[in-house]
């Protein structure tokens, strides 16, 4: 058994608002194995980004971690003071954001932004750092890297900028990258290239990736495993093939059914009635129960944990074996 | 009956909403609002509550001149805050003076708002050459400090008016001068909002129905751009009051016969060295408190109405 490099256990993220404490992420647990690509998929507002931010310690107030633990290679990191967490950021855990244009400081050359990061975390000399940066730009596919290292962000196109961002995130070789909607802001034609690049680089450097997105197609492309989030809960986890081909949770079922496929005919795309509840309106029991075609009494009363539903795990009472007899 | 119910509903919605909540939560803003209200009321009610009538020369007695405030040994309870060199009771003069200051401030702000909103709506909605001309003028004007523009208008107006009419018209000239120098912010903001609203569906719908452009501008678009306008209006009120005080202090505002707060301070400065500080300090405190209160209100309003911070 390989030791996971990241363990998230019973993570709970809360917000203090004038209407009371709002729970945005509720009892989420998962492990990340070294080098794997782990997708977290769900609608906007499901809590995916918050989960990612809390792992790297960039959760913004009034949000805070209310409960749970996060372990990086066995070391607990969710309660580290700022200056210790800073050393982990970039070096052990990296993060890339959605919009490559706003992710780069417009007043500095990309070379400066690269070398600055390298020099912060390593003992290299400035000229070594610059050479390393140029090699990185080459690796991510920036042509004429030697010249373009002295260019400013606005001199690059969107796709090129995201490559620069990826280079920045990988430059001191973290073992885990959190990618929060890395392709959403890009043209469809570029998305595939960036995704392929991400996959290749992470495989080469043995870097694990947490890929946060609402785009199931992207997940299906490169993830090894995937977790489906709904209203701040994990509703299903498993290998990507299993979850896509044979989803067990009614929500995952609806999600997979709504993806148009080139491979077989479908009469119409599945639509799930209703909408994901807002944070202050989450119903008791299973959060999906108002929209679920299979909901029964227990679903409205009691919240399910992830149950074993070979080959995946799903949080749904339909799969509680004792219950099955009673049905 | 229906309109009463509608008003009740609007009031309910208002008091339930975020804005009232944020107002209640900020003690500072509540105090500021109270102070402003007190000033406004006191100024309006000046003839009723002032112990003396400092603007009526018949009631003044030079023997009373330069009396210190009541808590000094040569002060008297009759003149609570002392008197100036003409024998005018400082407290009453502050009341009457605030009246002038607030009136000029308010009227000029309304003038600036009217001009600014109208020009803003027109340039935003009609666009083209009209917009270009209006915005050019705005650009040139805003690169000069408003005080200078106000002083210029004042100077020109008075060169054109006969000397005898100066005193009666001074307040109106000031309203005109300050109003004309402060319209640009209103115009720019309203133009920006108009450009955004212009493309929205309710405007397209009104056009399709065949509404006249003026109707569309004033009855449809205007209510939707009032938010930022209110913020600018409040801060503009503070600026207008300050501008009037400054102009009066400089001697190009309200004359000493019927002084505003600024004029009083001007008079008082000469007596500082004689140790008669009350002629400067009390009007100064009054002016500063009023402007501070209005500024705080404006600050709160800007934060409360800012969609980005909600």
């Amino acid at each position, binding site marked *: 058994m390989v030791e996971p490099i990241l363990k998230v256990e019973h993570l709970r993220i809360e917000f203090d608002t004038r209407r009371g404490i709002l729970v945005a992420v509720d009892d989420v647990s998962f492990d990340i194995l070294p080098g794997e690509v782990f997708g977290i998929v769900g609608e906007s507002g499901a809590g995916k980004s918050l989960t990612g931010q809390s792992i790297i310690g*960039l959760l913004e107030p009034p949000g805070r971690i209310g409960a749970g633990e996060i372990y990086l290679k066995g070391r607990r990191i969710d309660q580290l003071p700022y200056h210790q967490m800073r050393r982990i950021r970039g070096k052990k855990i*990296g993060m890339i954001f959605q919009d490559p244009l706003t992710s780069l*400081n417009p007043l*500095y050359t990309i070379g400066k932004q690269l070398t600055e990061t390298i020099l912060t975390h390593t003992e290299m000399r400035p000229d070594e750092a610059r050479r390393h940066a140029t090699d990185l730009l080459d690796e991510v596919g920036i042509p004429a890297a030697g010249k373009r290292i002295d260019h400013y962000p606005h001199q690059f196109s969107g796709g090129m900028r995201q490559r620069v*961002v990826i280079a920045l995130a990988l430059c001191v070789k973290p073992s885990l990258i959190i990618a929060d909607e890395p392709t959403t802001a890009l043209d469809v034609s570029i998305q595939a290239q960036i995704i392929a690049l991400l996959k290749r680089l992470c495989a080469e450097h043995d870097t694990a990736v947490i890929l946060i997105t609402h785009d199931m197609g992207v997940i299906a492309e490169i993830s090894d495993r995937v977790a489906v989030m709904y209203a701040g809960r994990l509703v299903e986890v498993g290998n990507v093939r299993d979850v896509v081909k044979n989803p067990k949770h009614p929500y995952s079922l609806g999600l997979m059914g709504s993806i148009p496929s080139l491979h077989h005919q479908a009469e119409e795309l599945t639509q799930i009635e209703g909408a994901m509840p807002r944070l202050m309106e989450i119903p008791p029991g299973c959060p999906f129960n108002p929209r679920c075609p299979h909901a029964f009494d227990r679903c409205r009363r009691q919240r399910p944990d992830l149950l074993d539903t070979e080959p995946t795990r799903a949080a749904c009472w339909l799969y509680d074996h004792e219950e099955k007899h009673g049905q | 009956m229906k309109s009463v119910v509608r008003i009740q509903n609007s009031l309910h919605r208002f008091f339930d909403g975020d804005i009232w909540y944020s107002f209640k939560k900020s003690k500072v803003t509540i105090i500021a609002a109270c102070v402003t209200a007190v000033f406004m009321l006191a100024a309006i009610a000046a003839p009723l509550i002032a112990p003396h009538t400092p603007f009526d020369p018949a009631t003044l007695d030079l023997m009373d001149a330069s009396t210190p405030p009541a808590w000094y040994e040569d002060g008297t309870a009759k003149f609570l805050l002392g008197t100036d060199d003409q024998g005018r009771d400082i407290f009453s003069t502050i009341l009457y003076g605030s009246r002038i200051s607030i009136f000029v401030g308010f009227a000029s702000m309304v003038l600036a708002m009217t001009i600014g909103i109208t020009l803003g709506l027109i340039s935003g909605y009609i666009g083209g050459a009209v917009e270009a001309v209006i915005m050019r003028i705005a650009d040139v004007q805003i690169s000069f400090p408003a005080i200078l523009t106000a002083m210029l208008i004042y100077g020109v107006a008075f*060169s054109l008016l006969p000397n005898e009419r100066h005193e009666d018209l001074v307040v109106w000239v000031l309203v005109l001068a300050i109003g004309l120098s402060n319209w640009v912010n209103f115009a720019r903001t309203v133009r920006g909002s108009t450009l955004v609203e212009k493309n929205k569906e309710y405007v397209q719908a009104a056009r399709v129905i065949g509404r006249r452009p003026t109707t569309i501008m004033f009855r449809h678009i205007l209510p939707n751009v009032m938010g930022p306008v209110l913020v600018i209006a409040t801060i503009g009120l503070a600026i207008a009051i300050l501008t009037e005080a400054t102009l009066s202090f400089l001697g190009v505002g309200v004359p000493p016969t019927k002084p505003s707060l600024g004029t009083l301070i001007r008079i008082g400065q000469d007596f500082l060295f004689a140790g008669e500080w009350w002629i400067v300090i009390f009007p100064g405190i009054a002016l500063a408190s009023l402007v501070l209160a209005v500024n705080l209100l404006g600050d709160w309003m800007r934060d409360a109405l800012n969609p980005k911070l909600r």
Partner: protein
Amino acid sequence: MIALIIRRIFQSFIVMLTVALVAFTLFRYVGDPVSQMVGQETSIADMERMREELGLNDPVIVQFARFAWNTLQGKFGISYRLGRPVNELFVERLPATLELSLIAALFSIVVGIPMGVYTGLYPDRVLSKVFQAISLIGISLPTFLIGILLILYFGVILGWLPTFGRGEVVQLGWWSTGLLTVSGLKAIIMPAFTLGMFQLTLIMRLVRSEMMEVLRTDYIKFARARGLTNRAVNFGHALKNTLVPVITITGLQIGSIIAFAIITETVFQWPGMGLLFLQAIQFADIPVMSTYLILIAFFFVVINLIVDILYHVVDPRLRFDKAVAAG
């Protein structure tokens, strides 16, 4: 870049022309120049002759051209109030105003920017709240009141600083400076503080709000996510991005300081241009009024031009053409 400069110079020229037109209209048509210049007993015939001699009956275009030409040569006419050539008056008074304005501007920048940075970075600390309170008072207390209070305390009560005037001045060519004598330095302290106070408040608020905006951007988040030190993030990235717009706006403010000097000069009886202008307004001394207008407009236009060019030099986004590389 060159094209830009030429375009801006051309625009400035148009502005100056407009201002000259306004000044000319004032000069010629507000009040009657001739009756201002002569005594009560001058006959109508004599006044008519003067009008001819002065060219007041020529076509408007000719008069304006003459006016413009005279202005360029520095011939601004004769003051109605003082009977002396206007340009002499201004040469005498200009140094006083400029020295005062420059010291005040320096003061507001050197103190205002650090205050703004501090309150932007640490908005919840006690010192920040103190600074905020000071800024509120600075905006609400009219400049003249601040001046008077200073005079009252430091001049009348404590007797440390002179309550009016410029102190001893040293003549350097046509420039007179008060900065080389002790009494001159003492005399400039309160006026410079008074004049600079309002600007300081504006700068502080501006820097604070820019700083807070910048700290919320994605590139700052990304910089933190890369594990850059607090110092690098706050002062390397945030500060630089904050100062770029601030420096340009501040430059523009210098022009308005020169105009606001009117108030300070009145309070402290400082023998500058502002006081001259004020007295001109009170006496309807049109030549002085219109000259002041033209001079101020000139300063503004030159400052605007410099600031504009500076902005283009400092912000790389405006400097380079967008070189777009393929996807």
